[in-house]
């Protein structure tokens, strides 16, 4: 044979057919040049197709548990702009929890291999990486980090454990064996996930991207596919974007609101329009007292009526009306000042307050007076006391600010709760959840 045989270029590509060395059933290898192992569709043993005698690689098969690939082998579909054929199907299981997931091997002779994984009904498209996010030295030493930086993304540790091959079907580019296990670690940064698999001999890194179930159904023309359950580790959050936009808007409006409040507070006149002292008699009543007329400047502003009564273990009640001298518009108010104190079992106590205030908003400017009645009570003392009635015009107020703040915050808070709830669900299956408190 010459060293450099001039082979005629073959255009035809043909599948390879042989009989199963175990059960005799016919086996077809569709891509014998690329595949190294194939399963017998009948008895499910794995056969080495590079071996002339079709050596059996793996006899193990679990008769009690047959898995049916939801995308039949041989199906072709277009995903991420390339056409892929499903040539292999693997079920893997977490050794500790027994939780299993499905992996579909995709093939394109130009672009090689990809995987589609199905985990709780969630799909991911997996590409092998040649650039390693971090050295496998760390994996060899069983030192794994909680965060991995890769191409401007930070990935958080989500899972580590032993993954066991539970079931295989189809053809593979390596000599696949059931029951073999790898040490696996997943890191997430939705919609991506970085995984490393290590089996003492080699360390393989891959990157998954979340694929919506509807895309898989459409690509492979699969009808009646069960929908996803829960939140996948790398599922993009539908709330995250809303929340980040909402957060920006919220901060913007709060800043505006504070600015507006500072400006209006600074421009408030805040002057005393009336400050009168009156006497009242304990356990007595007064009727129809009228204050001098006072002037409220500005077209429209608030008015604060401050009441301070000389009460001590007694109460003082006032009911009044502030009347516009020109238009007759009337603002009614009533308040009670009561203050009690004492010593019980050697402990001093007190309750109530000797002062009260009433805020009236949007009061038009003009001349005003106040009419009022009072009443008071004291169980021990008689005699005369004083109270002051003060009218403060255009006071700086935070009530409006607080209300605006409250209403402005409702939507952002809802968004935040949605976002957080989603993240808590995402991490609920992980041993490394940042949301789990140490008590649970």
């Amino acid at each position, binding site marked *: 044979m010459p060293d450099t045989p001039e082979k005629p270029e073959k255009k035809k590509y043909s599948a390879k057919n042989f009989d199963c060395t175990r059960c005799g059933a016919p086996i077809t290898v569709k891509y014998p040049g690329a595949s190294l192992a194939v399963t017998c569709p009948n008895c499910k043993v794995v056969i080495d197709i590079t071996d002339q005698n079709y050596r059996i690689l793996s006899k193990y098969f679990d008769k009690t548990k047959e898995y049916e690939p939801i995308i039949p082998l041989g199906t072709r579909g277009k995903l991420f702009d390339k056409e892929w054929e499903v040539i292999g199907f693997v079920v893997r299981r977490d050794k500790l929890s027994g939780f299993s997931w499905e992996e579909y091997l995709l093939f394109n002779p*130009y672009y*090689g291999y990809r995987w589609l994984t199905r985990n709780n009904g969630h799909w991911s498209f997996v590409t092998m990486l040649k650039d390693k996010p971090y050295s496998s030295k760390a994996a060899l030493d069983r030192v794994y980090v909680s965060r991995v930086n890769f191409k401007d993304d930070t990935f958080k540790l989500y899972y580590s454990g032993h993954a066991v091959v539970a079931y295989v079907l189809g053809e593979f580019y390596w000599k696949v064996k059931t029951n073999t296990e790898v040490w696996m670690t997943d890191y997430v940064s939705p919609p991506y996930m970085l995984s490393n698999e290590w089996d003492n001999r080699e360390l393989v890194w891959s990157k998954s991207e979340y694929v919506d179930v509807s895309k898989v159904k459409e690509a492979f023309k699969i009808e009646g596919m069960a929908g996803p359950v829960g939140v996948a580790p790398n599922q993009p959050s539908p709330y995250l974007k809303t929340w980040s936009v909402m957060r920006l808007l919220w901060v913007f409006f709060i800043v505006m609101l504070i600015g507006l409040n500072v400006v209006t507070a600074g421009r408030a006149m805040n002057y005393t329009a009336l400050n009168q002292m009156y006497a009242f008699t304990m356990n007595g009543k007064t009727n129809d007292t009228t204050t001098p007329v006072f002037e409220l400047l500005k077209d429209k502003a608030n008015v604060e009526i401050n009441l301070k009564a000389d009460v001590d273990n007694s109460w003082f009640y006032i009911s009044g009306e502030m009347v516009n001298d020109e238009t007759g518009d009337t603002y009614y108010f009533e308040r009670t000042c009561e203050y009690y104190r004492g010593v019980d079992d050697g402990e001093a106590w007190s309750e109530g307050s000797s002062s009260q205030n009433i805020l009236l908003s949007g009061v038009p400017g003009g001349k005003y007076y106040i009419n009022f009645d009072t009443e008071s009570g004291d169980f021990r003392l008689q005699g005369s006391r004083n109270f002051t009635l003060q009218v403060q015009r255009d006071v700086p107020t935070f009530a409006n600010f607080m209300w605006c703040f409250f209403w402005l915050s409702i939507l952002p808070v809802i968004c935040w709760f949605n976002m957080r709830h989603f993240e808590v669900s995402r991490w609920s299956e992980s041993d490394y959840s940042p949301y789990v408190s140490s008590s649970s």
Partner: protein
Amino acid sequence: MDLEAVGKMAELQDDLTPLQIGTTGKYKGKAFEIIGRMKVSYDDGFWNEWYLYFAEGKHKEGWLAEAQGFYAVCFEVDQRVAPPRQDASALQPGRLVAFHDHELFEIEDIREVKCLVSEGELPVNAPKGRESLSVDLTGPDTQMATIEYAKDEIRVFAGGYQDFDDFKFHNLREIEGWKHA
């Protein structure tokens, strides 16, 4: 495994490669043509080493390693950057090697390989049946390197992986039932 027998089988068996002698492409913008091919076998299968001719540039000759849909182009570099032969037994996957401009490369795998078949033009020191210990390394940013410990020489190749589409291949082999997008 009987490498001779496998070799015969491999020769007869089409390996589904999209490349062929005469395929042209670009690596990091530099145009090349495939002029030869070596099919290399190891315990678990085969891969292709395509011999490249670059019309321009420092390196006129290079290799395109093709395995499982990964494509890497590499050029022969000074063999003195490699760990000496007697240390080769200490090499193991996962080990970091200060290699090539003092960057840290990681050993991906170590394999006993054999050149099974060849076609087209090839350098004189790539005969069929040549056996060697091949150490594959990956470096930062999809760089790669291969150290070949043969009976009487050490050869070192360094280069990088490139995505299939970035090669802008022309004159690819037609594969029945598949269209190249």
